[in-house]
């Protein structure tokens, strides 16, 4: 695959986790220091320890994979290394054998030759490729005479070096998603080269592949290989096990904020990866109400729905059923909700709800509400509620018609109604005049849930309903969902959180590439099965034996 150390054989299993990773690393030359050695990295958000003493070692010239389920801490780890989060005291960061400041000061990562490509690429679509390539330089350097000709030649030279055929004068908006990813990565690599001497440099790629077609992924991997040829290192965060096995030399797997293991990618099979990602934890207590009978009344039938990332999806949901939709990021499971509600346009599809069959093309949120649908988006203060307006105003929005008196809106009635809902859903503090934005994530979510539950919807659709919600509030939200489903509301939950789905769902549909590839129900619904199936969904055939080793 790529330049790999001759002494991979000394990369032997070690059962004692500790900071002394240096002895068992795949070195190309004896005594070579790791490009990046992070030891004992911890991070606490609020009361949750999202990273707990994680170690990471990346050798020069290595492609290192970073895997884990959602919430396992991979993003937090790389963001901490890149200086976007401050770590808890006690961690250390060593770059090429020299101690580096940790937490990394602003701009420090760049000076140390670490460059970070975010999933959203940080390109400006309306500007040209040259302008985007020069963005970082333009942002930090004073330059009173930009020579566009020279800049164009430089960009062409870089593209040539990596065998890319992208027109530097094109607008980024006109390029394919794959080309954009390649531009972002070459830009980051070029930056690393400017700052790290002797081919040094560490490129961190945060999930660059979910939105790329297969050909784009291959191009991207080609680029990664040429990057490490010169001795730089790449850390690749990804969900797709096959891609990780294809491109990386070694991979570190995180689980629940702790190091689950580091494996040599070529020697670990899919099952081994899944085992490390999912772990062998006992599933949580299941709080769902009994599943509705299989011959129960169908609340909604969705047929042949296609939209952005969604490709011909059909399913039924019954009265009182809680149906989960899941998959890896980019598989389109979350877009199903938005397209059904008319929040994003659907290309094809119909829905049969409330005895009426209607096309999903041209569906609008207003029309969806009229048929008894409700949708709670994941973006809590961007799409679901307005943080600068009060709890009462947010709650009252969809039910304004109920609170009329001779003077117009009956604000006293709304106040009482909100206090009652606040008590029912345990909103703290229960003060309807307070701005929604002043509440914690969990309580804001209770308010927004109450906003829709009070309309007694036929079909309630929730996108990542417990994102950023603490465990206590989570149980209260689940209880509210159970109550609603007991009253006959059909609940559709899109989430990447297998644990949460296992706790509340009667049935779970697993998505891959915009299609439903697996349906789980009954006793199959537990956290591990959902997680495993989600990862397995990417490639249908199962693979062989466990002959890999684990570090730490």
């Amino acid at each position, binding site marked *: 695959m790529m330049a790999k150390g001759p002494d991979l054989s000394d990369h032997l299993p070690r059962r004692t986790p500790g900071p002394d990773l240096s002895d068992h690393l795949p070195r190309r030359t004896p005594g070579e220091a790791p490009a990046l050695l992070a030891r004992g990295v911890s991070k606490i958000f609020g009361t949750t320890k999202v990273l707990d003493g994680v170690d990471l070692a990346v050798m020069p010239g290595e492609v290192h994979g970073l895997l884990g389920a959602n919430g396992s801490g991979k993003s937090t780890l790389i963001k901490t290394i890149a200086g976007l989060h401050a770590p808890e005291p006690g961690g250390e960061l060593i770059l090429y054998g020299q101690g580096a400041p940790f937490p990394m000061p602003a701009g420090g990562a760049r000076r140390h030759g670490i460059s970070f490509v975010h999933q959203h690429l940080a390109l400006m679509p309306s500007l040209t490729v040259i302008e985007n390539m020069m963005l970082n330089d333009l942002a930090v350097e004073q330059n009173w005479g930009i020579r566009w000709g020279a800049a164009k030649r430089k960009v062409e030279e870089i593209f040539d070096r990596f065998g890319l055929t992208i027109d530097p004068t094109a607008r980024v908006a006109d390029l394919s998603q794959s080309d954009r990813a390649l531009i972002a990565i070459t830009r980051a690599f070029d930056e690393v080269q400017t700052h790290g001497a002797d081919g040094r440099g560490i490129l961190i790629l945060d999930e660059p592949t979910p939105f790329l077609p297969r050909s784009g992924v291959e191009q991207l991997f080609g680029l990664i290989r040429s990057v490490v040829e010169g001795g730089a290192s790449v850390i690749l965060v990804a969900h797709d096990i096959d891609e990780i096995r294809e491109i990386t030399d070694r991979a570190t797997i995180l689980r629940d904020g702790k190091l689950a293991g580091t494996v040599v990618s070529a020697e670990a099979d899919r099952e081994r990866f899944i085992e490390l990602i999912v772990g062998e934890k006992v599933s949580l207590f299941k709080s769902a109400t009994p599943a509705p009978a299989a011959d129960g009344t169908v609340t909604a039938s969705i047929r042949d729905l296609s939209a952005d990332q969604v490709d011909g999806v059909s399913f039924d949901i019954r009265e009182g059923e809680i149906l989960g939709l899941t998959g890896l990021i980019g598989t389109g499971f979350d877009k199903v909700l938005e397209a059904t509600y008319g929040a994003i346009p659907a290309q094809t599809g119909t829905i049969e709800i409330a005895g009426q069959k209607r096309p999903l093309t041209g569906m609008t949120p207003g029309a*969806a509400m009229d048929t008894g649908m409700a949708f709670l988006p994941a973006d809590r203060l961007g*799409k679901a509620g307005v943080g*600068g*307006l009060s709890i009462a105003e947010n709650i009252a929005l969809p039910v304004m018609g109920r609170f009329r008196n001779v003077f117009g809106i009956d604000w006293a009635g709304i106040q009482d109604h909100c206090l009652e809902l606040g008590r029912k859903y345990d909103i703290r503090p229960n003060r309807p005049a307070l701005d929604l934005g002043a509440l914690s994530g969990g309580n804001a979510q209770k308010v927004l849930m109450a906003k829709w539950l009070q309309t007694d919807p036929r079909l309630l659709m929730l996108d990542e309903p417990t994102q950023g919600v603490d465990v206590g509030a989570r149980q209260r939200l689940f209880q509210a969902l159970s109550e609603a489903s007991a009253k006959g509301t059909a609940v559709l939950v899109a989430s990447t959180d297998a644990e949460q789905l296992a706790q509340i769902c009667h049935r779970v549909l697993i998505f891959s590439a915009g299609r439903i590839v697996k349906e789980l129900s009954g006793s199959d619904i537990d956290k591990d099965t959902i997680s495993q199936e989600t990862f397995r969904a990417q490639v249908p055939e199962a693979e062989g034996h466990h002959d890999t080793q684990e570090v730490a």
Partner: protein
Amino acid sequence: MTAQSTETPVAAKTSRVNWAHIGESYALVAALIVLFGVFAIVLPDRFPTWPNVSTMLGSQAVLVFLSLALIVPLTSGDFDLSIAATLTISAMTIAVLNVRMGVPVGVAMLAALCVGAVIGAINGFFILFFRIPSLIVTLGTGTFINGIVLWMSKSATIGGIDFALVNWVVAKRFMGIPLAFYYALIMCLVIWYVFGFTAVGRRLLFVGRGREVARLSGINVDKVRFGALMCSAMIAALAGIVYAGTIGAADPNSGNTFLLPAFASAFLGATAITPGRFNPIGSLVAVYFIVIGITGLTMMGIQTFVQNLFYGGALVLAVALSQLVRKREEQSLN
């Protein structure tokens, strides 16, 4: 259960009086009273007299109308820079139809309102169909309308509008104050009611504060924005009628000088009564706060450039103040 969650409505109302909040809400009212008091002391013979007060109240009714026109689209998140031009063309329509063509003043007034409606529809069409920022569209239409006004008036002031209009706007008085003031007050109350006590007002607010939230809550965002732009143009046309009645004539330029004061009042008003929100009562207070300041200074013999200092300064200070109220969040108009 914690103390917080057992809180009853009664306890919430009586437990603590939020003095800081009250102070913030009525600071502008207090400032208005203080300013009035200062001028009353400095100019005891001329300032605190009934003729002066009633003139201030009556003559600035036009500005009240215009700032009320402005806060409607501002609440739904759009600027309307064409309101002053709409006011001018509305007044000029009345003058041209009534004086030059002999059309009865009532019909001329209706025509002026129709002109306002057309302008609102044009603004709405360009902003919503082509998705152009409202700032650009209304800047353009405003200038365009000014051109039309100069053309239809042949750049001349047209006097001699039917005295019935003047009579019903400024000549007739109730409790010594010209009727124009009461019209403005009624308009203010209507908007206050719509903003606070109707579903339309709520939709307006949500469209302005969270367009995506509004859309996903089933609100037809474009319809609301279109309605708001229609409203602002129609109220601006009403302001034009009041303006024509106030001076009994129409001139092609002076109406435009109301644009900045209207913005200043709208933004200054948003720091009062319900801080952080554009509100009609606040705008009313702001208009008269500015008017007292300018009238007082003018009476003290300070030159007319002070007007510009006062309006311009008030606008920037008002926005700065309202940003402090919002804890310096990034503003997202447009």
